[in-house]
Structure formats: C-alpha cells, structure tokens
C-alpha cells in the first residue's frame, strides 16, 4: 500500500527527524504516527474525498529534507513576489523551514513574535505547548497526521493581549528542490484577547520538480481578537497542495480567511472553523481560476457550537479546458446555538465544455431559532450581458474577460487589505488574459 514507504521512512529516520527539530514538535510524532498507521491517507472511497483521491498523490518517489540541508540562496534577492510594494512585515519559508537570514526592516510592536516555530518553542515553551497541535485534529485526517509526523519547523505569529498590528505580515512560501519532494509546513497563529493581526501568505514554486505540500494552519482567536489569513497560490502545475486550516474562536472574535488560487496543479483546501464563544464571526472565502488539467477542491466546515454567532462561506471557481473543481460547504449548527446566522454561497463558471464542477452543500441544523442559507450555481457567462457589451463595441473576448473579472469581485472584496485588493484585481485580470508574470527568477514556465 502507498502509505508503507512513509511508515518505513518514519521508523527509519525517526532520530534524524527529532534531531533537526525541537522537543515541542517531536512530542506529537508518535501519536500522529499511530493514527496514520490506522487510517492512512484519505482516498476517494470516503465521501468527503470522493472527487479528490489524495492517496494517489503520494504514490510517488518523494524525498524529505529531514536533515535540513540548506538551500544556498537569499530569497529576497532572488525572488520578487507578484504582490510587490505592499507595506508589510516580510518573512520567508523555504519549503518548510523558516529563513532566518533575513529580517523585515521594521521592528514588530513590543511583545509580538513572528518567526520560526522552533525558536518560538524555545522562547515560549508554555505558550507553544498550549497551542501547537492542539486543534489540528488528525483523528480523521491522514494528511494532518502525516504532517504532524514529519513537520520540523514552520511559521508562528504570536500577538499578546491588546496589541493591534497596523501593518499586515507577509509570508512567502517558496518551494525549492532538486528532486521530487514532500514538504510539510506548519503555521501557528495565536491572537490573545483583543489582538489584531493580518497575514498574507503567498505560495510560489521555483523549481520544476514535483512537490507534494501539506500545510497545517492553526489559528487561535481569543476574546475580541481579529485574525485575517489571506493566501495567494501561484504554484506550478507539478505541485500538489494539501492545506488544512483549523480555527477556534472565543467570544466576540472575528476570523477571516480567503484563498485566491491563481495558478496551481492539484489543490485541496480544508477549512475547519469552530465557534466556541458567543457573538463570534467567521468568514471563509475562496476564488480559484483553473485551466488545463488543474484540480481545485475546497472543503469548508463551519461549526457553530455557541449561540449568536455569524458565519459566511463564499467560494467561487472559474474552470477552463479540462479543469475540475469541487466544493463542499458543511455547516453544523449545534443544538444550543440559537440565533445563529450562517450563510453559504458557491458560484462556479464553466468556460469550456470539458470543465467539470462537483458542488454540494451540507447543512446540519439542530437549533431551531437560526438563519441559514445556501446558494449554489454552476453555469456559463451571462449571454445577455455579453451581447450588451458587444452592442457597445466591446469585442467578444474582451467582454468575456470583463465578465470573468467581475465574477471574481466579491471574493476579492472580502480581503481587508485595500492595497492587496487592487493588486489582486490586476493579477486576476492578467491571469484571465494568460499574461500572469512569473516571479523574476523562477524556472518554471507556464
């Protein structure tokens, strides 16, 4: 079976794994391994993975950089992100390792920590232990178990009570390798009471090899905290991205996440929000533009455990050529979660006859005083709107482009960094025109 090579790898190189990581992370490996042995990778035999046979993506000869052999390049010089000149605190992850030879020019406010997970576990062992792997549940998710087994570093943001970061943080995730690689990233965001933080993560691929990337993000939003996590995926077609986002919120907190997939190979994004306090708000959004043989699968699970909370899922997909898209929006309103407001919208544009979309809402509502809605449409561009524009002299192709960019609008509007919104609109426009610029020194052609 496909899992065997990874089971053997783990057992064989356990010492190296631990040696190149920290105690706090090593603690969780055994338990994750046990679970992984039992449940393995998700496969299309499971309902939630019906259209994304994850196990197959691991059926490859993948290396693991367990000994942290460094990549001899300064990413800041060699690499310029597509979202330049954004005023942010800038950080880099090369594969799964925090790049510590570069520091953002401006200092973070007092008490804030942003950087290597390893360093954080050494400086703040109690905080680390209280949060790391505490909500990334792997009991039913073999990919999260796998990640917990093999992750050796990652990126963490810790914002103490009452600190509001004015500028967003930007993390550039770079994939580099000379051979096909398994990369396992961990992201940890801890926002204490009344803290405010925004993070933008940009995924980029530099080398033309096959990468299977697992990413596990854990977000802790304490009372009245506000956390925004935006992701921009611009990966090569040889990248498999398996993203698992977990968030737990307390009273009056507000967590927003949105992923714009501009270019990818095979992507599965899992979102799991748990609203454990009252008057909390959660927003999950996504926009994927796929063509050729690309695959996008967004699975969002919103769990309303307490009353008076609000959530919104807005996912949109534009598919061309033979691309496939999948969406499942699961909303759980638990028995005592009265006065819940939960909304879900999924809109999908099929721009070719061979594109396919599989979409399904899944609402489980056990409280009786709630407002829930879901809306799902899959179709083509509005013929009437197209003709109206042509009747004004705008040619067919340009009219289609304008409509496709317009289609993306409201997901972009969810992003609470205005300068980023503008740049994204530009990038989306370029993407539709087939003119997406590859980052400066990237070796992968589109």
């Amino acid at each position, binding site marked *: 079976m496909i899992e065997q090579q990874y089971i053997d790898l783990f057992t064989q190189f356990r010492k190296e794994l631990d040696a190149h990581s920290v105690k706090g992370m090593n603690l969780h490996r055994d338990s994750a391994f046990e679970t992984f042995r039992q449940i393995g990778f998700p496969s299309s035999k499971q309902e939630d993975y019906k259209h994304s046979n994850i196990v197959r993506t691991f059926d490859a000869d993948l290396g693991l950089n367990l000994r942290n052999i460094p990549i001899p390049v300064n990413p800041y010089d060699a690499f310029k992100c597509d979202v330049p000149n954004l005023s942010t605190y800038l950080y880099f992850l090369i594969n799964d390792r925090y790049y510590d030879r570069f520091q953002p020019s401006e200092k973070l406010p007092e008490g804030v920590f942003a950087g290597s997970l390893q360093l954080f576990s050494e400086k703040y062992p109690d905080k680390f232990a209280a949060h790391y792997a505490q909500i990334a549940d792997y009991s039913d998710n073999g990919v999260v178990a796998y990640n917990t087994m093999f992750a050796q570093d990652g990126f963490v943001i810790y914002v103490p009570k009452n600190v509001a970061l004015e500028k967003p943080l930007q993390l550039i995730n770079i994939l580099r390798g000379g051979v096909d690689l398994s990369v396992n990233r961990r992201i940890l965001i801890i926002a204490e009471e009344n803290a405010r933080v925004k993070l933008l993560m940009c995924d980029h691929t530099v080398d033309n090899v096959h990468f299977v990337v697992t990413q596990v993000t854990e977000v802790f939003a304490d009372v009245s905290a506000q956390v925004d996590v935006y992701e921009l995926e611009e990966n090569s077609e040889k990248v498999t991205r398996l993203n698992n986002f977990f968030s737990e919120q307390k009273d009056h907190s507000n967590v927003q996440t949105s992923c714009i997939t501009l270019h990818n190979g095979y992507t599965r994004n899992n979102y799991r929000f748990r609203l454990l306090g009252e008057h909390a708000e959660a927003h999950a959004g996504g926009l994927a533009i796929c063509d050729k043989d690309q695959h996008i699968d967004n699975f969002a699970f919103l769990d309303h455990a307490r009353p008076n909370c609000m959530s919104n899922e807005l996912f949109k997909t534009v598919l061309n050529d033979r691309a496939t898209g999948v969406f499942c929006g699961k909303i759980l309103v638990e028995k005592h979660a009265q006065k819940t407001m939960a909304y879900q919208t999924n809109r999908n544009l099929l721009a070719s006859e061979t594109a396919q979309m599989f979409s399904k809402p899944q609402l489980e509502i056990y409280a009786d005083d709630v407002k829930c809605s879901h809306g799902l449409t899959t179709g083509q561009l*509005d013929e*009437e*709107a197209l*003709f*109206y*524009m*042509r*009747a*004004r*002299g*705008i*040619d*067919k192709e*340009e009219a289609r482009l*304008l*409509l496709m*960019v*317009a*289609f*993306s*609008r*409201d997901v972009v509007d969810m992003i609470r960094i205005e300068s980023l919104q503008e740049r994204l609109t530009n990038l989306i426009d370029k993407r539709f025109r087939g003119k997406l610029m590859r980052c400066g020194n990237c070796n992968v052609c589109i």
Partner: protein
Amino acid sequence: MTSILKIKNLHAIVEEKEILKGVNLEVNEGEVHAVMGPNGSGKSTLASVLAGNPKFEVTRGNILFRGKDLLEMEPEDRAREGLFLSFQYPVEIPGVSMVNFMRAAVNEQRKYRGEDPISATDFLKLMRDKRELLGMDSQLVSRSVNEGFSGGEKKKNEIFQMAMLNPQLAILDETDSGLDIDALRVVAAGVNKLQAKENATIVITHYQRLLEYIKPDYVHVLYAGKIVQSGGPDLALELEKRGYDWLINP
C-alpha cells in the same frame, strides 16, 4: 439625402419561428423614424436583428448601413461603425463599473477609427460633460453597470451611453416603457439634444405618447413582421385615436 440605413425584404427567425416577414425601410441623414405596432408584431426583433443579437437568424434580405453590408458585421463592429441600440430591458452587470465599461467602449470606437485611446483626464471630462448635458446624476456613473437601477434610471443610462458614443444611427427600443412622465421628459430631451443633421434615429414604440416629445418625420406601422403602413407624424395621431384595428382589419 444621404442614406444611413437601407433594409430590403428582411426575414428573420428566432427559435425556428419566423418573426420578420419581409421588412423594407429606408432611413436618411437627419431623419427621425417611428416604428409602431401592436405587441408581437416584431418591433423588438427588428431592433435585435439590426444590433446583431446572435439569438436571431436572418433568413432572407439585406441591410446596408451607410452603404456597407450590415449583416456581415459582428455586433461590436456595427457599434463601432456607429449603430447604437438603446435596449428595452438593459441588463445589470454587477462587478463591471460604468467607468471601465464606457472607457472600453469609447476606446474601441477610437481604435476602429485609427485614433489613440482617450486619456484619463479627457475621459472623465467627457463623462462629466455628457452627464451635465443630459442633466443626469453623478450617482448613475459611479456604480456597476445598471446595478440596482430603477427602470427609469436604466433608460437614462442608455441615453447617457448614447451621448458618450455619439452614434450615426440610434435605435430606441421601447425607450418609454416603464417610465413615468418626468423620466420620459428627461429621456426625450436627451435624445433631442443628441440629434444632428448627420445622424438619424429610429424610435420603436407602442404608444404615441413618446412621440409628443420626440417628433418623428416618418411613422411606420409594423404588423405581423411587415410594415403595413407608412406616413407622416399624423399617422401616429390617427393610431392614438383609432388604435391599430382599422389598419389590421380594413
């Protein structure tokens, strides 16, 4: 008398059904033609066929637009040549801003004529000038195309676009439908302001009311896909008094 439009024996179908059964019409520079008729006579079909709506298929006949074969042209080229259709039911296009939309349209025309694209400042000035000319609210242009507009606002927006594009031939498809008297006056005043001796207008309407404000030179009655009667402005008044019956069942 320079010809702007020459329609000869036009037959058109939509979804296999023949709607236009041999329409003949000639419009010259400086003229205003009203096309009236009962519901289902083919008035909107005529407008759609002239604009090049792909839902409609021309099965016989030809149309010359300033001597050029109109039916050979894509809808966007017809617009660039100077044909403007004011839609009966303008569609809403959320997410496409009026500004971007109009600028794209204006620049397409300029490109077609071999001109450079309009500068940002000139464009904004053009928008402002035309708005003022027509007495229109700035609100109209600061949003997405027709998004959240009332019927009257949509029709005003059509005339605003007409002002921006300065067409040779304007086809107003039931511009008065759904409008109250005040909105009607504003729209009609706009149309009148844009008339010049080099261009022409076809006003498609069911009721005579609009023609009180936009005075036609010629009135045609379209019935069952054919023009059954043509005359001067008095014809419209006659129809107002007697309805269509006397023409249809003589």
